[in-house]
């Protein structure tokens, strides 16, 4: 906690101009400038949208896979294979995506050979694009396998096999067992982790750094860009964004765990 407090304290003082090489003393100028430029709000909306879409698709797909294939996913080879994505860090996933989805990547080559495109420029922008397609695809590919394994674990621990069997014997249809038994049990057990993953993705760095565009940028990329720039007078604004991000994440954490503590009694 000491390093966290030290980092936050330093950023806070810098953001108010109290410390810093070119700062003259307390001022609200940097905070006003950040709000005026809208950089933080743009990055926040962009990050929240990407994180929400990625988590939503990952959780939905993982739930579907778990409920449809929970028996087949336990086969000897398959059960080993579904762990393999966890061996791929974000930076490798981003590198692989560049090789596959860039204008000179593998898909573009296939598209050219099949006659769908007539050259590099014809291929659509799937990375460094305005809709963050590349970023979202990579985040899904990194997060979804984890949720598949998590949901499979919950499926076992909560004995969902027996619960669904019981529901069927009491006259429930297939869709009723899914919507009224399996899904509520899995989601109630894992919602904290899902929310935590949303917060993690909000602060994603290397994937948007490689696959994102110049503007808007995700929060971490924006903060580091502002803090590392050559114009020393602008660094304080970077610390303003860092302080706002830290406060936001801290509030989310407190809400998340106080709610969890209440539920656990």
């Amino acid at each position: 906690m000491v390093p966290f407090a030290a980092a936050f304290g330093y950023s806070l003082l810098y953001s108010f101009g109290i410390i810093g090489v070119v700062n003259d003393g307390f001022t609200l100028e940097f905070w006003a400038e950040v709000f005026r430029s809208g950089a933080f709000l743009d990055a926040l909306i962009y990050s929240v949208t990407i994180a929400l879409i990625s988590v939503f698709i990952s959780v939905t797909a993982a739930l579907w896979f778990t409920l449809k294939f929970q028996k087949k996913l336990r086969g000897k080879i398959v059960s080993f294979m579904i762990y393999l994505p966890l061996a791929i860090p974000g930076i490798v996933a981003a590198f692989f995506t560049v090789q596959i989805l860039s204008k000179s990547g593998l898909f573009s080559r296939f598209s050219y050979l099949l006659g769908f495109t007539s050259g590099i420029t014809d291929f659509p922008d799937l990375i460094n694009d305005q809709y963050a397609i590349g970023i979202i695809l990579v985040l899904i590919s990194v997060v979804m396998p984890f949720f598949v394994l998590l949901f499979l674990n919950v499926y076992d621990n909560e004995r969902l096999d027996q619960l669904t069997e019981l529901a069927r014997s009491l006259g429930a249809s297939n869709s009723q067992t899914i919507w009224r038994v399996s899904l509520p049990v899995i989601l109630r057990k894992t919602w904290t982790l899902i929310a935590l993953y949303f917060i993690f993705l909000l602060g994603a760095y290397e994937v948007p750094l490689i696959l994102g565009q110049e503007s808007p940028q995700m929060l971490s990329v924006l903060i580091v860009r502002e803090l590392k720039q050559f114009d020393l007078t602008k660094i304080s604004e970077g610390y303003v964004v860092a302080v706002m991000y830290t406060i936001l994440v801290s509030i989310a954490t407190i809400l998340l765990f106080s709610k969890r503590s209440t539920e656990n009694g």
Partner: protein
Amino acid sequence: MGRWKNGILITYLVAIVFPFIFLFLLSMSSGWRFPDLLPEYFGFKNWGKVAGTESGIAQSFLISLVISLSVAVSSTLCGFVISRYVSYHPKKRLLTLLTYFPYILAPVVFGACLSYYFLKMGIFGTTFGVVLAQFIIAFPYALIFFSSFWNEKIKSYEDLVATLGGGSLTTFRKVLLPMARGLLMVCFFQTFLISWFEYGLTSIIGVGKVQTLTIKVFLFIKESNFYYGAMSCCMLIIPPVVMIYINKKYVFNKLI
């Protein structure tokens, strides 16, 4: 319907394996120009240079290994010992909540805000600085990880040893460490992976001087040297794949 569903499952499994095969094949290639599907050269030429100074990949592998082992050992041991005091503390809930803050914040932002202190301590751009920075992230993880270990049963064992005249050091060495051996192994590998996969924090505190494998991948992307980039990716992937093969628990742990 059944065939359609099987098709999706097979597609998913192929999508899992494909990156591994593709990256390995790319690491063996050179002269892969658009629109060719196959490269001009395919063989072990690139891998022959893995230990050379031109690529620097073997050196980065060793640096990554030293950093990750240091972070894993220190954070696992500190996490195990200190989590005991947190778990038995009257304000356990508050302390556990506070543990989450450094863990949940984006490491790169945390590193950027901490860099001033690293500069003042003279460890900015050093391997020790990177180890310390990564420890600050991995240690809270270890604390949270071990919090479930300390329960009434363990407390009873500790009390029993104390009743029989054993000191706290004996309790740790003869009772607690053997009982927690499995958890210690899992935590060691998990914290090893946190460090092994880390990029943002390392780039900030290491300022390009400490070139771990993740930093190398990014440098090769910037240089458009995709063949060496793929080789670095393969080196990054190998240890976790081995861990999965030995024990899946080493890479997957639902923390909360």
